[in-house]
């Protein structure tokens, strides 16, 4: 959907970033085009705005450095989403490691988890949904986000996550059942 709307914009971006003189202009266009969807994707994964800001900036810096080598084998937004999901998953892994280290210091872990998983904005039901999603493993949560919120097809997701359509379907179905079960238990 996004790709169709921004196809000409993508072409402009890619044409501009090829030349050193116009690279900055092209990159600014890329940021203004993709900052909102990338922010949302990352924020749903890492939860806090501060963490989302860190991850998004890292993602865009990598995009800036790598865009010259982008060969156009995939759509620009798929390429950007791949960077964003990799950055988000790496961030979550690091946070998990820090949490495990904190577990060794008694009393620290609970405080850390509370800080790490604050509720997102929204009504009560939405907050419950967000809370239920936090109980999914990181990769399963990513698949759930991409399908449930981003409306991504399994095929696109397969390209993005380098995973088979069958595996993605199974992951999504499992995630959906689990989230609904958690929501029902809370009601």
């Amino acid at each position, binding site marked *: *959907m996004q790709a169709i709307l921004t196809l000409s914009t993508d072409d402009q971006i890619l044409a501009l970033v090829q030349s050193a003189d116009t690279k*900055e202009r092209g*990159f*600014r266009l890329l*940021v*203004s085009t993709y*900052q*909102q*969807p990338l*922010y*949302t994707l990352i*924020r*749903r994964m890492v939860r806090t*705005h501060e963490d*989302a*800001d860190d991850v*998004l*900036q890292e993602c*865009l*810096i990598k995009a*800036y*450095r790598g865009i010259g080598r982008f060969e156009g084998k995939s759509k620009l937004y798929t390429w950007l989403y791949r960077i964003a999901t990799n950055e988000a998953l790496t961030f979550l892994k690091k946070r998990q490691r820090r949490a495990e280290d904190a577990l060794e210091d008694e009393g620290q872990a609970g405080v850390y988890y509370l800080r790490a998983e604050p509720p*997102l*904005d*929204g*009504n009560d*039901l*939405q907050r419950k*949904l967000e809370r239920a999603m936090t109980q999914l493993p990181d990769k399963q949560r990513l698949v759930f986000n991409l*399908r*449930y*919120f981003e*409306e991504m*097809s399994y095929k696109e997701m397969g390209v993005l996550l380098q995973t088979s359509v069958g595996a993605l379907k199974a992951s999504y*179905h499992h995630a*959906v*059942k689990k*989230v*609904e079960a958690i*929501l*029902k238990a809370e009601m």
Partner: protein
Amino acid sequence: MKDRDDIQQELEELAPDLARLRQSVPRELAPPPGYFDSLADRVLEQAMAEDKPPLNVVWHRRRSVRQWKTWLAVAAAALLVLSVSLYVFYPPAHSEESLAGLSDAEARAYIEGNIDEFSISLMLEAELVQTGDPALPAGIIPDLEEEEVEEYLYEILEDEELEELF
């Protein structure tokens, strides 16, 4: 549109409550106001700062230090060679003076204590001294009869060397 419909239909079959909830969930999450206004600037600032060659600067500095080290090593080596050459070709005068201050007895005692048979052989060979030279330390070259010397030489020298001698 078809994708969206497929996704909603799939969800309704799997989890109807979740499918209903999805209709009211915001698709986008909003950052604090003004966040996106400066995002590109901040990213570009960071990216360019990291791209700018602090690395090159460091590299130049490193190269400069390396050059200094090389020059220092070359200078030290040159100084060493010069010092050794001066010492070898222009030995310090004070050593002669100090030797001049030695009495004959002291010199003889020193030579007797430090010279060995091999050195004497070399000195004899170079005709720097003669057998029975009073400069030679007593007892090192024994007073030998001519026959004894010949016998000794026959033992240690090869035939060709003997032919040259006799």
